[in-house]
């Protein structure tokens, strides 16, 4: 199979994954899920940087974008979950139920 077509198809996959992940992160309920998906988003972004020949950026995105940022978000989710009033059944339901009157 032609290498060019294969590369192009891969690019479409990467871009599609990025957009799908962004929608999932921002619009699906569950903050813990958003945090984990955010880490995945960072890793797919690393692949995108490699495809665009930005190797330094890829390294930085992997450690900082996916690693440190993901860790920060998970830490925040954990603390929001731990101190909030016990409506949530665990990490999957953190803090997204609306404040119903």
């Amino acid at each position, binding site marked *: 199979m032609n290498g060019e077509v294969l590369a192009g198809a891969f690019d479409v996959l990467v871009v599609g994954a990025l957009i799908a992940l962004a929608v999932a992160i921002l619009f699906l309920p569950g903050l813990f899920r958003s945090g984990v998906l955010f880490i995945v988003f960072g890793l797919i972004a690393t692949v995108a940087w490699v495809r665009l020949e930005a190797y330094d950026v890829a390294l930085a995105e992997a450690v900082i974008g996916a690693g440190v940022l993901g860790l*920060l978000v998970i830490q925040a989710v954990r603390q929001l979950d731990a101190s909030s009033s016990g409506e949530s059944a665990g990490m999957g339901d953190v803090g997204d139920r609306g404040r119903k009157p």
Partner: protein
Amino acid sequence: MNGRVPARYALALPGVAVVTGALVRALMLTNEGDPALGALVQANLAGSGASHAVTAVLLNFRGYDTWLELVVLLVAATATLRARGDRGEQRMREPGELVASGLAARMVPVVLLLGVLLLANGTSGPGGAFQAGAVFAAGALLMYFGGYRLVLVSGGVVQDLLLIVGTFGFFAAAVATTAAGMRTLEFAPRFAGPAIVGIELAATVSIAATLLLIVLAAEEESRASDP
């Protein structure tokens, strides 16, 4: 989620769609990049002290921006540490966990080696201070989760010094170049190589300390609220 879509969604959608469409159009209009600037970098690469273009840009041609970036990191670290909950020094984890401590003992040397490799490779290929600093911070976090005590970031003067040394590296370079009669942060080709290596070393230390402290602050706070 209730069946009706709230009003703000309908309100925001046209505005965002217009902005996005305008951006795409602007993207299509600015069709050509600016090859002149990239060519300028390549032309001056030889005397810049690094053979990797990105490193040369970061630490020589646009060194001032990197300096200010280190200042931003310093401010972020300071602000985050101040915004932390009330706790004094680092609380040690229970050193009991076998898997975590064993993993740390085995992996940390490899991680440290990886960090050194990334830093050393930075002048001639991908790598450099930021990536290496983050890897070192990751190694230190492995040690922390394995139950080992991190002495260097336990607060006090040593911790402050570690945070500051990166910014100070640039400051020293600026003072040296200005005192030598050149424009500030303009490296003579003879000194550019060692200057870049020195600044990268200092920056790596600061970046590692900053990232480490930011994550540790959150960890300590979480454990303060755990039962």
